[in-house]
């Protein structure tokens, strides 16, 4: 589903290279965890894939179901099934959460040549999915993320994911700022979305999220490259030993 080959990317402003020949293959139905020390390029990877401005890709390719996404406008990447759950979801004052969701959904449908979803269908969908994530009516009516707690913001990201039904979900440090209860709710939300035709890339610094979202494959990212790949046990090993070994390997 996702195929990244020899990806090099730098920060536009100062030309600092962050990703240095990254390779990654994720198949449909799989959950891949990407772990690594601070500054390894974990968030940069998620930003480059989603198309955030401020980065320059200098080499390599990234395709989603065989289609090159790096040249695509970020809105079109979303319509093609890519979803990034942000580490720090932003607040948009004055724009109702429902309004935002509906605008996003219908933009994507339009870009794919599908008709708009009717309001009753949309309301039904939102009500069902919001219920699963313990998102209240009040949160749906309030402006996007404004005054939400850290846990509410992350739950809201998962709600967007559930409504937009992407093919590839990238979770950028979704566990940061969550207490254990919130972590459970968010993880259950993610697990409920697992399916044979959807893939997940879970970026995290800590192993604890992986107790709740069980990965099929674990990668270690260091200095802009994948330096080790293994099964779920690799995460436990990292938890015990830390990242010190890998910093050396990549050097």
């Amino acid at each position: 589903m996702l195929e990244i080959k020899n990806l090099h990317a730098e920060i536009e402003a100062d030309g600092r290279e962050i990703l240095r020949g990254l390779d990654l293959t994720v198949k449909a139905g799989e959950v891949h965890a990407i772990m690594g020390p601070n500054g390894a390029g974990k968030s940069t990877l998620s930003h480059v894939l989603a198309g955030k401005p401020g980065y320059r890709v200098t080499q390599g390719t990234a395709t989603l179901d065989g289609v090159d996404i790096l040249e695509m406008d970020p809105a079109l990447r979303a319509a093609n099934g890519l979803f990034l759950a942000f580490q720090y979801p932003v607040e948009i004052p004055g724009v109702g959460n429902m309004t935002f969701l509906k605008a996003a959904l219908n933009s994507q449908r339009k870009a794919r040549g599908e008709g708009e979803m009717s309001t009753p269908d949309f309301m039904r969908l939102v009500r069902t999915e919001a219920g699963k994530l313990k998102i209240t009516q009040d949160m749906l009516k309030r402006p996007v993320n404004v005054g939400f707690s850290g846990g509410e913001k992350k739950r809201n990201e998962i709600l967007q994911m559930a409504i937009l039904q992407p093919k590839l979900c990238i979770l950028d440090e979704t566990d940061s700022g969550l207490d254990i209860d919130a972590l459970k709710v968010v993880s259950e939300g993610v697990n409920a979305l697992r399916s044979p035709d959807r893939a997940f890339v879970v970026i995290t610094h800590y192993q604890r999220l992986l107790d709740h979202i069980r990965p099929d494959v674990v990668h270690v990212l260091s200095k802009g490259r994948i330096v080790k790949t293994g099964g779920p046990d690799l995460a436990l090993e990292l938890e015990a030993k830390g990242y010190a070994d890998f910093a050396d390997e990549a050097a």
Partner: protein
Amino acid sequence: MAAVKETVDQVRAIDVDQYKYGFESAIESDMAPKGLSEDIVRFISAKKNEPEWMLEWRLDAYRRWLTMEEPTWARVHYPPIDFQDLYYYAAPKSTAGPKSLDEVDPELIRVYEKLGIPLKEQAVLAGVEGARIAVDAVFDSVSVVTTFREELAKVGIIFCSISEAMREYPDLVKKYLGTVVPTSDNYYATLNSAVFSDGSFVWIPEGVRCPMELSTYFRINEKKTGQFERTLIIAEKGSYVSYLEGCTAPQRDENQLHAAVVELVAMEDAEIKYSTVQNWYPGDKDGRGGIYNFVTKRGDCRGDRSKISWTQVETGSAITWKYPSCILRGDGSQGEFYSIAVSNGHQQVDSGTKMIHLGKNTASRIISKGISAGKSQNTYRGQVKINRKADGARSFTNCDSLLIGHDCGAHTVPYIESGNPKAKVEHEATTSKISDDQLFYCISRGLPTEEAVALIVNGFVREVLQQLPMEFAVEAQKLIGVSLEGSVG
């Protein structure tokens, strides 16, 4: 979300130029000779068959004006205006005065149709289409038609052009004209008093709630012509009226002057809601052409517990100089000002309000949202003044500015004078930018850039949009989208 979608569709439909009302209509005009003199003042007064006292009133204003100097305190810059190089009167030849709809030149009706202003009564009266909105259509210097007059007359409401009011209801006009904005008020108001040509007159009798929206639509068409409109609205005891004003002009290289005066009088327990959607031609992308909009608008809450509410959506004009104000004279009276000022290109906006608290327990509320893009400058200038006798007065101001891009500016200039230690005055101000993070967040969820900007901006101005009558809120939302086209990316 339909509105946002429409905004974007509309933006796409407009090719190079975003101003869609820039067309010029070939309508023959009857014009005054160029320039300004006592003779021109007499000419205008004669054209309107005005009574002698009105001519004297105008001449008095004109003589005063000659001794006055143009104000320079606003944060706007423009080359000196040559007041002798303007026409002060232009009227479509076919229209001698306001008539019934079937007598109006079909060419004029078509102009208003093209502007999206329906000048029709039959279909609406029969319930076939549209909202019930009575329109006074002012074309250059004259009112060409006022709709729904008979319908309104049934409940005793007078809605007509001010020229007609001077002939038909001289006592009412004499009693109120110039009592809110005196002829000597300021440079442009004095000029207006001397040469004003047309505008609307509204009188709501005691205890009557106006059954429909009233509106005036101003159109400048002739070249080198100034438009000097004058509007007077009186709401007697316990009455209510909601009034809306709209304006557009053709696209030209020259700058044209629009200097209006609007006076509102609210008696005991009366309420006037005055909304403006201002969309004069703003000039081209290099700052050539556009309307100079120098306007004096003031409401007098003369009676106890009266209320005046100004709502404005300002997207047009090369320069806007405008401070709709309230004099809170009656005890317990209330003044409100809700404003959205959008500037793009080289537009300059200096706008705000004045709330003068004279009566006891008076209240004012100011919500101002400025959005600057391109190379524009957007200033909020507001005054809150509490008289020493205004016990229990309270005032709340909130002005927020939103910047789009790096070359524009937003400024806030509040003047607060409180002569009463028991008064409560609050002022809040914020300036923010549409952050790249907000924009990317929306785009990453599938919203195209233009739609994302429209969504964020509409969120920013929502509080004010909610104050507009429903139909106009949708229009205003679209207009804001169009005005900001191309401001990001």
